[in-house]
């Protein structure tokens, strides 16, 4: 009754105002791709600094890299982009890239080895948050001139020791590997910032698109680059519009005002079934949902307790209810599709087993607090944990806060339990191995806040050394095997219960072809899209 009243009230109001029908666009123009997405996380579009999802999507379409992923064949791994080919020295430390000839930046300047060297050095010198992706190979502001060298049309980089070549090249496909136009960027330098401020809101790339405008929390507009070496993209304009609400995104998609809706809740995705002209694009992404147990807590540090808690999670129940089609069960730190990823999920909900383990550890009446940020699915997971933990006599209190509040405590090692998500930083297994299972110094003074193992106070029991060995193994097969072993030990002993991997479900007009969201390894690409 209330609903009818309201609808009548609203309708009457509309009529009273004399609302006349105003024709709206029925569909988006044929050469324009319009995407609704939450883009309020973008804080900069400088590739040396950007470290957010929405920003990475934009940068992937603006900038060329030495090596890059082909959106139509992500499984093929990195492919030549601005570097046409490369050779590796005998000691495995130096990779020499030969640049593709005849490629120009959007400014008209040629893309030279000099620009590539400048871009990498710039990332090292600026030392912004994502710089570790490059500097982990031993590049420092002091040695950059000696280790990153230009010789005519070739660029050579020399790492501090031998690493798997695939590791180095995979890292160069990350956002920070974008090659910027040296002349243009340095022409806009202010106070020795190497164009950092200017690049925040401008673009200087050679990719298929250039930045037309970025209005924070409103929209990003890209224009096709007519001189792109791979040919001009079919979509002359790409507009990514910030739309916060899933229901609103769905409505806009159904009305034909947008082509792609990227933040639909599972219920809105279900609602799209049977709507004409709309389909759902599903891609496995790299984001993992996990809970971790602080090893500074006397009870949580007991091996049986860690094990018991892993048996107290209702993996299947969650996956088949509120996480259905949204997250898929996955209990390993390497996301599916990564080198070395495995499918073994040994843990299932088993209260009796958990109780036995707790009894063995001599733990009773345990009361714990889980830190969780206020996002719908995380709260639901936390409530499920609260319920299932209670079945074994464990009281779980929820500490809910904004992402920033909870994260602050997690980094300070102050939480008993953390419920969170982790996305890989670059498409190499070391990205997750290096944070979940690597912790060279577990002391408080080390303050290694970037490492998840450290945040949980976990001395990895030998995994640190194994991770360090895997990352320098040149033989890819052997390297994958090493990650299998590391993950087996990790599942058994780690204070982490990895639970789920994200599936992105985007609603899409059915005339859109060739859109890639980037899978687990990279970001969205628009240049192959046709309508």
């Amino acid at each position, binding site marked *: 009754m209330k609903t009818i*009243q*309201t*609808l009548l*009230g*609203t*309708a*009457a*109001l*509309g009529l*009273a*105002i004399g*609302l*006349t*029908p*105003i024709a*709206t*666009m029925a569909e*988006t*123009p044929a050469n*324009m791709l*319009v995407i609704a997405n939450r883009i*309020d996380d973008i*804080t*900069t579009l400088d590739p040396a600094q950007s*470290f*957010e999802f929405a920003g990475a999507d934009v940068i992937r379409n603006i900038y060329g890299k030495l090596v890059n992923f082909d959106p139509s064949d992500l499984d093929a791994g990195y492919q030549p982009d601005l570097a046409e080919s490369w050779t590796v020295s005998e000691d495995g430390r130096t990779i020499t890239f030969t640049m593709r000839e005849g490629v120009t930046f959007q400014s008209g300047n040629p893309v030279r080895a000099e620009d590539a060297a400048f871009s990498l050095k710039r990332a090292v010198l600026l*030392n*912004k*948050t994502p710089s*570790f992706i490059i500097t982990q190979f031993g590049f420092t502001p002091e040695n950059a001139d000696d280790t990153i060298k230009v010789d005519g049309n070739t660029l050579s980089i020399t790492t501090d020791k031998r690493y798997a070549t695939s590791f180095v090249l995979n890292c160069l496909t990350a956002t920070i590997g974008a090659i910027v136009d040296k002349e243009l960027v340095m022409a806009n330098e202010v106070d020795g910032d190497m164009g950092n*401020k200017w690049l925040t*809101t401008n673009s200087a790339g050679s990719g298929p698109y250039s930045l*037309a*405008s970025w*209005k*924070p*929390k*409103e*929209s990003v*507009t890209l224009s096709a680059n007519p001189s792109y070496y791979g040919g001009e993209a079919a979509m002359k304009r790409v*507009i990514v519009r*910030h*739309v*916060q*609400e899933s229901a*609103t995104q769905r*409505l*806009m998609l159904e*009305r034909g*005002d947008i082509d792609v809706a990227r933040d639909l809740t599972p219920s809105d995705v279900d609602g799209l079934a049977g709507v004409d002209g709309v389909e759902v694009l599903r891609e496995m992404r790299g984001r993992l949902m996990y809970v971790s147990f602080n090893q500074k807590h006397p009870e949580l540090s007991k091996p049986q307790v860690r094990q018991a808690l892993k048996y107290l999670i209702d993996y299947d129940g969650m996956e088949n209810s509120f996480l259905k089609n949204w997250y898929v069960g996955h209990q390993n730190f390497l996301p599916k599709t990564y080198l070395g990823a495995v499918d073994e999920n040994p843990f299932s909900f088993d209260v009796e087993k958990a109780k036995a383990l707790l009894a063995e550890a001599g733990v009773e009446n345990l009361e714990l607090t889980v830190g969780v940020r206020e996002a719908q699915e995380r709260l639901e997971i936390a409530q499920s944990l609260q319920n299932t933990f209670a079945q074994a006599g464990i009281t779980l209190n929820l500490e809910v*806060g*904004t992402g*920033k*509040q909870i*994260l*602050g405590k997690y*980094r300070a090692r102050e939480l008993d339990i953390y419920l969170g998500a982790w996305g890989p930083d670059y498409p190499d297994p070391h990205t997750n191995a290096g944070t979940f299972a690597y912790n060279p110094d577990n002391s408080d003074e080390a*303050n290694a*806040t*970037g490492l998840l193992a450290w945040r949980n106070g976990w001395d990895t029991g030998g995994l640190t050394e194994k991770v360090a060995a895997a990352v320098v193994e040149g033989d890819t097969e052997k390297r994958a095997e090493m990650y299998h072993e590391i993950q087996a030990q990790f599942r058994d002993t780690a204070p982490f219960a990895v639970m789920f991997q994200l599936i992105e479900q985007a609603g899409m007009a059915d005339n859109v072809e060739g859109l890639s969201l980037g899978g687990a390894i990279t970001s969205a690409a628009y240049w192959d899209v046709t309508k």
Partner: protein
Amino acid sequence: MANFATETERRPWLPLPPWARGTLVTLSSIAVTMLGLLFVTFLIGRVMPIDPVLAIVGERATEEQYNAAYRELGLDRSLAVQFFYYVTDVLRGDFGTSLLTARDVSTDIARVFPATFELATIGIFFGCILGVPLGVIAAVRRGSWIDQIARVIALVGYSMPIFWLGLMGLLLFYGILGWVGGPGRQGIFYEDMIPSVTGMILLDSLIAGDWGAFRDAFSHIVLPAALLGYYSLAYISRMTRSFMLEQLSAEYVTTARVKGMSEWAVVWTHAFRNIRVQLITVIALSYANLLEGSVLTEIIFSWPGIGSYITTALLSADMNAVLGGTVVVGLVFICLNIFSDLLYKVFDPRSK
């Protein structure tokens, strides 16, 4: 609400003519209010359990990167020093840089404020032209069916979550009927097509002489503005009704009726004239509320206004943006206050 233009001093304490003294008092109370506002928001920003440094550098940052950003923000200085620098910057019109948008806060506000201003102005316009007559009629026909309808309309306005009503409105008028444009301030086709002069798209499209863009912008604003208007209508009509009832039961009204004046003249020239002053305050108050409190409407309709700007800034510890936004909202309140005081003087002979 503080009344800045009212003079409380009886004895002249400055050898100035009364109007100059009045202005001086007004200005100094504005200054004190603004300073207090700055101080309180500044303190809240500093004691909030959110780390602004983390907001910039992200969770993967090393200690060294974290410390560099910490120093860059000036957080290593004492609170008093930080506040002093902040106030002196603000006096120069510099609100600092927003962490989230990487632009000057003043630039951001110049972008988001016109959007809210446009929305709230049309909203309050709807609210007034419908709410005032509705309230008057409801009072005149007290207890009749029209009074009942007015009551229901106001009740729904009070009790329905704006969030839900907004989504339902979108579903009906945009989704099903297709009468209005969808979320956002303009259709995607017109994105970046109209040069920004005032920042208000309706005005800008008129200036550009682009009739299509104007229609498009209008089709986008009409629904959120109607929604906001509805909420202020609910308040305005109830207040109008109760003011009118009070007047209609007064003796002078009875006298006028006895004298044989027409009902129309009694209501509109006698009774209504006497509630104008009270109504001004009510309308100014609703308008101020629309200008700062339309966050949910802005979120549902993807309307990039100051309400959602301050809210997201607050949630992300973007303190420069929060402080800048608060100062602007504070100024708006003060301006509206002064404006309604001026109108008081115009309409109420006693205050002369």
